[in-house]
Protein backbone atom coordinates (compact mmCIF):
# COMPACT_ATOMS: atom_id res chain seq x y z
CA UNK A 1 0.00 0.00 0.00
CA UNK A 2 1.36 3.41 -0.89
CA UNK A 3 2.10 5.59 2.11
CA UNK A 4 -0.47 8.27 2.77
CA UNK A 5 0.85 11.75 2.22
CA UNK A 6 1.12 13.92 5.31
CA UNK A 7 -1.49 16.65 5.46
CA UNK A 8 -0.86 20.32 5.97
CA UNK A 9 -1.94 21.95 9.20
CA UNK A 10 -4.47 24.05 7.30
CA UNK A 11 -6.06 21.01 5.67
CA UNK A 12 -6.41 19.20 8.98
CA UNK A 13 -7.77 22.24 10.77
CA UNK A 14 -10.34 22.65 8.03
CA UNK A 15 -11.49 19.06 8.45
CA UNK A 16 -11.75 18.71 12.24
CA UNK A 17 -14.74 19.69 14.37
CA UNK A 18 -14.17 23.20 15.55
CA UNK A 19 -15.70 25.39 18.21
CA UNK A 20 -15.93 29.04 18.97
CA UNK A 21 -12.55 30.08 20.39
CA UNK A 22 -14.15 32.33 23.01
CA UNK A 23 -15.45 29.28 24.81
CA UNK A 24 -11.94 27.82 24.90
CA UNK A 25 -10.25 31.07 25.91
CA UNK A 26 -12.72 31.88 28.66
CA UNK A 27 -12.71 28.31 29.96
CA UNK A 28 -8.96 28.36 30.23
CA UNK A 29 -9.11 31.75 31.94
CA UNK A 30 -11.67 30.47 34.42
CA UNK A 31 -9.46 27.46 35.20
CA UNK A 32 -6.44 29.65 35.88
CA UNK A 33 -8.55 31.89 38.04
CA UNK A 34 -9.98 29.00 40.04
CA UNK A 35 -6.52 27.48 40.50
CA UNK A 36 -5.19 30.82 41.79
CA UNK A 37 -7.99 30.84 44.35
CA UNK A 38 -7.54 27.21 45.39
CA UNK A 39 -3.75 26.87 45.33
CA UNK A 40 -2.93 30.44 46.41
CA UNK A 41 0.77 30.20 45.44
CA UNK A 42 1.50 31.33 41.89
CA UNK A 43 4.31 28.80 41.68
CA UNK A 44 1.88 25.98 42.48
CA UNK A 45 -0.48 27.21 39.77
CA UNK A 46 2.38 27.15 37.25
CA UNK A 47 3.10 23.56 38.23
CA UNK A 48 -0.53 22.52 38.03
CA UNK A 49 -1.02 24.10 34.60
CA UNK A 50 2.10 22.35 33.36
CA UNK A 51 0.82 19.04 34.73
CA UNK A 52 -2.58 19.50 33.12
CA UNK A 53 -0.88 20.29 29.84
CA UNK A 54 1.32 17.22 30.15
CA UNK A 55 -1.74 15.00 30.64
CA UNK A 56 -3.43 16.60 27.64
CA UNK A 57 -0.31 16.22 25.47
CA UNK A 58 -0.04 12.55 26.33
CA UNK A 59 -3.56 12.01 25.00
CA UNK A 60 -3.54 14.53 22.17
CA UNK A 61 -0.53 13.03 20.41
CA UNK A 62 -2.71 10.08 19.33
CA UNK A 63 -5.18 12.36 17.65
CA UNK A 64 -2.32 14.28 16.11
CA UNK A 65 -0.72 11.17 14.61
CA UNK A 66 -4.03 9.76 13.44
CA UNK A 67 -5.18 12.91 11.68
CA UNK A 68 -1.92 14.28 10.31
CA UNK A 69 -0.46 11.18 8.60
CA UNK A 70 2.92 12.53 9.63
CA UNK A 71 5.56 9.86 9.29
CA UNK A 72 8.58 9.46 11.52
CA UNK A 73 10.60 12.67 11.70
CA UNK A 74 14.21 12.22 10.69
CA UNK A 75 15.58 14.49 13.37
CA UNK A 76 14.61 16.88 16.12
CA UNK A 77 14.66 19.78 13.68
CA UNK A 78 11.90 18.23 11.68
CA UNK A 79 9.99 17.39 14.86
CA UNK A 80 10.05 21.03 15.93
CA UNK A 81 8.86 22.19 12.51
CA UNK A 82 5.99 19.71 12.56
CA UNK A 83 4.89 20.87 16.02
CA UNK A 84 4.94 24.50 14.93
CA UNK A 85 3.37 24.14 11.50
CA UNK A 86 1.02 21.20 11.92
CA UNK A 87 0.45 20.71 15.66
CA UNK A 88 -0.35 24.30 16.60
CA UNK A 89 -2.41 24.78 13.48
CA UNK A 90 -4.59 21.72 13.80
CA UNK A 91 -5.53 22.35 17.43
CA UNK A 92 -5.34 26.10 18.01
CA UNK A 93 -5.76 27.29 14.44
CA UNK A 94 -2.57 29.36 14.56
CA UNK A 95 0.87 28.71 13.15
CA UNK A 96 4.09 29.05 15.08
CA UNK A 97 7.62 29.37 13.75
CA UNK A 98 10.88 27.77 14.80
CA UNK A 99 14.16 29.61 15.31
CA UNK A 100 17.23 30.03 17.50
CA UNK A 101 18.71 26.58 16.94
CA UNK A 102 21.82 25.72 18.88
CA UNK A 103 24.82 24.17 17.10
CA UNK A 104 23.93 20.62 18.16
CA UNK A 105 20.40 20.88 16.85
CA UNK A 106 18.89 19.90 20.21
CA UNK A 107 17.56 23.24 21.44
CA UNK A 108 15.30 25.63 19.60
CA UNK A 109 12.59 28.19 20.15
CA UNK A 110 8.99 27.93 19.09
CA UNK A 111 7.69 31.42 18.47
CA UNK A 112 4.03 32.22 18.71
CA UNK A 113 2.74 35.62 17.68
CA UNK A 114 -0.93 34.88 17.79
CA UNK A 115 -2.16 32.92 20.80
CA UNK A 116 -5.87 32.28 21.36
CA UNK A 117 -5.25 31.47 25.03
CA UNK A 118 -4.59 35.09 25.88
CA UNK A 119 -7.41 36.92 24.07
CA UNK A 120 -9.02 39.24 26.65
CA UNK A 121 -6.27 38.46 29.20
CA UNK A 122 -4.41 40.98 31.30
CA UNK A 123 -2.41 39.92 34.33
CA UNK A 124 -2.91 41.82 37.55
CA UNK A 125 0.16 42.85 39.57
CA UNK A 126 -0.45 40.05 42.05
CA UNK A 127 0.18 37.44 39.36
CA UNK A 128 3.57 38.59 38.15
CA UNK A 129 5.21 35.20 38.61
CA UNK A 130 2.46 33.42 36.73
CA UNK A 131 3.25 31.66 33.46
CA UNK A 132 -0.27 32.02 32.20
CA UNK A 133 0.20 29.79 29.16
CA UNK A 134 2.10 27.10 31.03
CA UNK A 135 -0.40 24.53 29.84
CA UNK A 136 1.14 24.82 26.35
CA UNK A 137 4.63 23.89 27.51
CA UNK A 138 3.12 20.90 29.29
CA UNK A 139 1.28 19.79 26.17
CA UNK A 140 4.47 19.83 24.10
CA UNK A 141 6.44 17.99 26.79
CA UNK A 142 3.72 15.36 27.20
CA UNK A 143 3.22 14.81 23.50
CA UNK A 144 6.96 14.47 22.79
CA UNK A 145 7.41 12.06 25.65
CA UNK A 146 4.88 9.77 24.00
CA UNK A 147 7.07 9.66 20.92
CA UNK A 148 10.17 8.84 22.95
CA UNK A 149 11.61 12.31 23.37
CA UNK A 150 12.33 13.68 26.81
CA UNK A 151 12.31 17.43 26.66
CA UNK A 152 12.49 20.47 28.85
CA UNK A 153 10.20 23.31 27.79
CA UNK A 154 10.61 26.80 29.20
CA UNK A 155 9.18 30.24 28.47
CA UNK A 156 11.71 32.79 27.27
CA UNK A 157 9.30 35.49 26.16
CA UNK A 158 5.72 36.13 27.13
CA UNK A 159 3.44 38.81 25.67
CA UNK A 160 1.56 39.02 28.96
CA UNK A 161 4.82 40.14 30.50
CA UNK A 162 5.38 42.81 27.91
CA UNK A 163 7.40 40.87 25.33
CA UNK A 164 6.58 41.15 21.64
CA UNK A 165 5.96 37.43 21.10
CA UNK A 166 5.61 34.17 22.99
CA UNK A 167 8.82 32.18 22.86
CA UNK A 168 9.02 28.63 24.13
CA UNK A 169 12.42 27.04 24.36
CA UNK A 170 12.33 23.32 23.69
CA UNK A 171 15.40 21.41 24.71
CA UNK A 172 15.84 17.77 23.80
CA UNK A 173 17.27 16.00 26.84
CA UNK A 174 17.16 12.41 25.76
CA UNK A 175 15.83 10.34 22.96
CA UNK A 176 14.62 7.14 24.53
CA UNK A 177 15.25 4.27 22.17
CA UNK A 178 12.09 2.40 21.37
CA UNK A 179 12.21 -1.13 22.59
CA UNK A 180 11.85 -3.75 19.98
CA UNK A 181 10.18 -6.17 19.67
CA UNK A 182 7.19 -4.49 21.24
CA UNK A 183 5.35 -6.45 23.83
CA UNK A 184 1.66 -6.38 23.14
CA UNK A 185 0.29 -7.68 26.36
CA UNK A 186 1.96 -5.57 28.98
Amino acid at each position, binding site marked *: MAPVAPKSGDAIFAS*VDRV*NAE*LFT*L*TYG*AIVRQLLTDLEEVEEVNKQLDQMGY*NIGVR*LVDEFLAKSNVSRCVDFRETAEVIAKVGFKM*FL*GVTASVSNWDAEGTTCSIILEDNPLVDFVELPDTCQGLYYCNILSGVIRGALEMVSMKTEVTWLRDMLRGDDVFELQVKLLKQVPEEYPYKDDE
Partner: protein
Amino acid sequence: MVREVSESCVESLLAEIVSSYCTGFYANKPELAARRIEAIGFQVGHQLSERYTMDRPRFTDHLEAIKFICKDFWSELFKKQIDNLKTNHRGTFVLQDNRFRWLAHMSIDPSVETSGNIQDPSAMAENKAAQATGMHLYFPCGIIRGALSNLGIPCAVSADISNLPACSFVVRIKA
Protein backbone atom coordinates in the same frame (compact mmCIF):
# COMPACT_ATOMS: atom_id res chain seq x y z
CA MET B 1 -14.75 35.88 10.88
CA VAL B 2 -15.29 34.11 14.15
CA ARG B 3 -12.13 32.69 15.59
CA GLU B 4 -12.21 28.94 16.12
CA VAL B 5 -10.13 26.22 17.74
CA SER B 6 -10.34 22.46 17.43
CA GLU B 7 -13.08 20.91 19.52
CA SER B 8 -10.45 18.66 21.09
CA CYS B 9 -8.98 21.71 22.83
CA VAL B 10 -12.18 22.37 24.74
CA GLU B 11 -12.81 18.69 25.42
CA SER B 12 -9.26 18.25 26.68
CA LEU B 13 -9.62 21.17 29.06
CA LEU B 14 -12.92 19.86 30.34
CA ALA B 15 -11.51 16.37 30.92
CA GLU B 16 -8.53 17.87 32.69
CA ILE B 17 -10.62 20.07 34.98
CA VAL B 18 -12.61 17.04 36.05
CA SER B 19 -9.62 14.80 36.60
CA SER B 20 -7.54 17.48 38.38
CA TYR B 21 -10.30 18.30 40.80
CA CYS B 22 -11.65 14.79 41.31
CA THR B 23 -8.50 12.75 41.49
CA GLY B 24 -6.07 15.43 42.56
CA PHE B 25 -7.01 18.12 45.01
CA TYR B 26 -10.33 16.77 46.19
CA ALA B 27 -10.05 13.04 45.64
CA ASN B 28 -12.07 12.24 48.74
CA LYS B 29 -14.37 15.19 48.66
CA PRO B 30 -16.52 14.91 45.54
CA GLU B 31 -18.85 17.63 46.74
CA LEU B 32 -15.99 20.12 46.94
CA ALA B 33 -14.66 19.06 43.55
CA ALA B 34 -18.16 19.46 42.12
CA ARG B 35 -18.48 22.96 43.51
CA ARG B 36 -15.14 24.03 41.97
CA ILE B 37 -16.02 22.60 38.56
CA GLU B 38 -19.39 24.31 38.70
CA ALA B 39 -17.69 27.57 39.68
CA ILE B 40 -15.42 27.40 36.64
CA GLY B 41 -18.48 26.87 34.44
CA PHE B 42 -20.29 29.72 36.17
CA GLN B 43 -17.46 32.11 35.39
CA VAL B 44 -17.45 31.05 31.73
CA GLY B 45 -21.24 31.33 31.37
CA HIS B 46 -21.26 34.71 33.06
CA GLN B 47 -18.66 36.13 30.68
CA LEU B 48 -20.11 34.54 27.57
CA SER B 49 -23.62 35.81 28.21
CA GLU B 50 -22.21 39.27 28.82
CA ARG B 51 -20.57 39.13 25.40
CA TYR B 52 -23.51 37.64 23.55
CA THR B 53 -26.06 40.10 24.91
CA MET B 54 -24.02 43.25 24.38
CA ASP B 55 -26.11 44.55 21.51
CA ARG B 56 -29.49 43.38 22.73
CA PRO B 57 -32.25 45.13 24.55
CA ARG B 58 -32.87 43.90 28.10
CA PHE B 59 -35.02 40.77 28.38
CA THR B 60 -38.45 41.57 29.72
CA ASP B 61 -39.20 38.27 31.42
CA HIS B 62 -37.69 34.94 32.45
CA LEU B 63 -39.08 33.04 29.48
CA GLU B 64 -37.41 35.41 27.06
CA ALA B 65 -34.05 34.99 28.77
CA ILE B 66 -34.44 31.20 28.81
CA LYS B 67 -35.28 31.25 25.11
CA PHE B 68 -32.12 33.22 24.48
CA ILE B 69 -30.14 30.47 26.27
CA CYS B 70 -31.90 27.78 24.21
CA LYS B 71 -31.36 29.45 20.87
CA ASP B 72 -28.58 31.99 20.50
CA PHE B 73 -26.43 31.03 23.44
CA TRP B 74 -26.58 27.29 22.77
CA SER B 75 -25.88 27.85 19.07
CA GLU B 76 -22.72 29.82 19.85
CA LEU B 77 -21.47 26.99 22.04
CA PHE B 78 -22.67 23.88 20.26
CA LYS B 79 -23.71 25.01 16.77
CA LYS B 80 -27.23 23.77 17.48
CA GLN B 81 -30.19 24.86 19.54
CA ILE B 82 -31.76 23.18 22.54
CA ASP B 83 -34.24 20.69 21.08
CA ASN B 84 -37.01 20.89 23.58
CA LEU B 85 -38.06 23.36 26.23
CA LYS B 86 -40.65 22.63 28.89
CA THR B 87 -41.84 24.68 31.81
CA ASN B 88 -44.30 24.30 34.66
CA HIS B 89 -44.92 28.07 34.51
CA ARG B 90 -43.83 28.32 38.13
CA GLY B 91 -40.15 28.97 37.62
CA THR B 92 -38.92 25.54 36.54
CA PHE B 93 -37.63 25.03 33.00
CA VAL B 94 -36.35 21.84 31.42
CA LEU B 95 -33.95 22.32 28.50
CA GLN B 96 -33.35 19.15 26.55
CA ASP B 97 -30.49 18.64 24.12
CA ASN B 98 -31.19 15.42 22.24
CA ARG B 99 -27.54 14.81 21.58
CA PHE B 100 -25.36 16.71 23.97
CA ARG B 101 -21.91 17.09 22.43
CA TRP B 102 -19.89 16.95 25.63
CA LEU B 103 -21.22 13.50 26.35
CA ALA B 104 -20.77 12.23 22.79
CA HIS B 105 -17.23 11.02 23.37
CA MET B 106 -17.79 9.51 26.77
CA SER B 107 -18.65 5.94 27.52
CA ILE B 108 -21.50 5.84 29.94
CA ASP B 109 -23.26 2.93 31.50
CA PRO B 110 -26.86 3.61 30.54
CA SER B 111 -28.20 1.26 33.18
CA VAL B 112 -27.10 3.61 35.90
CA GLU B 113 -29.42 6.46 36.39
CA THR B 114 -27.55 9.57 37.32
CA SER B 115 -28.13 13.20 37.48
CA GLY B 116 -25.62 15.92 37.91
CA ASN B 117 -27.57 17.15 40.83
CA ILE B 118 -25.83 20.10 42.39
CA GLN B 119 -27.51 19.53 45.72
CA ASP B 120 -26.23 16.03 46.31
CA PRO B 121 -23.07 14.96 44.51
CA SER B 122 -22.14 12.46 47.21
CA ALA B 123 -25.13 10.36 46.17
CA MET B 124 -23.27 9.23 43.10
CA ALA B 125 -19.98 8.57 44.85
CA GLU B 126 -20.59 4.82 44.85
CA ASN B 127 -20.42 4.43 41.12
CA LYS B 128 -17.18 5.71 39.64
CA ALA B 129 -18.36 5.92 36.05
CA ALA B 130 -21.56 7.62 37.03
CA GLN B 131 -19.58 9.97 39.19
CA ALA B 132 -17.24 10.86 36.36
CA THR B 133 -20.16 11.63 34.06
CA GLY B 134 -21.90 13.61 36.76
CA MET B 135 -18.72 15.59 37.34
CA HIS B 136 -18.53 16.47 33.64
CA LEU B 137 -22.04 17.84 33.83
CA TYR B 138 -21.27 20.33 36.59
CA PHE B 139 -19.42 22.39 34.02
CA PRO B 140 -22.34 22.97 31.61
CA CYS B 141 -24.70 23.35 34.59
CA GLY B 142 -22.39 26.09 35.85
CA ILE B 143 -22.31 27.71 32.42
CA ILE B 144 -26.11 27.95 32.29
CA ARG B 145 -26.35 29.23 35.85
CA GLY B 146 -23.63 31.80 35.15
CA ALA B 147 -25.29 32.95 31.95
CA LEU B 148 -28.67 33.41 33.62
CA SER B 149 -27.13 35.03 36.65
CA ASN B 150 -25.54 37.61 34.38
CA LEU B 151 -29.01 38.29 33.01
CA GLY B 152 -30.22 38.97 36.54
CA ILE B 153 -31.88 35.60 37.09
CA PRO B 154 -30.62 33.69 40.13
CA CYS B 155 -31.31 29.98 39.76
CA ALA B 156 -30.18 26.42 40.46
CA VAL B 157 -29.29 24.14 37.55
CA SER B 158 -29.03 20.37 37.53
CA ALA B 159 -28.63 17.82 34.75
CA ASP B 160 -30.47 14.63 34.01
CA ILE B 161 -29.03 11.97 31.70
CA SER B 162 -31.51 9.20 32.35
CA ASN B 163 -32.49 9.47 28.71
CA LEU B 164 -29.18 9.18 26.85
CA PRO B 165 -27.85 10.41 24.49
CA ALA B 166 -30.22 13.20 25.41
CA CYS B 167 -29.31 15.44 28.30
CA SER B 168 -31.80 17.63 30.14
CA PHE B 169 -30.86 20.67 32.14
CA VAL B 170 -33.32 21.59 34.82
CA VAL B 171 -33.36 25.27 35.70
CA ARG B 172 -35.13 26.28 38.90
CA ILE B 173 -35.45 30.01 39.20
CA LYS B 174 -35.19 31.32 42.71
CA ALA B 175 -38.24 33.32 43.68
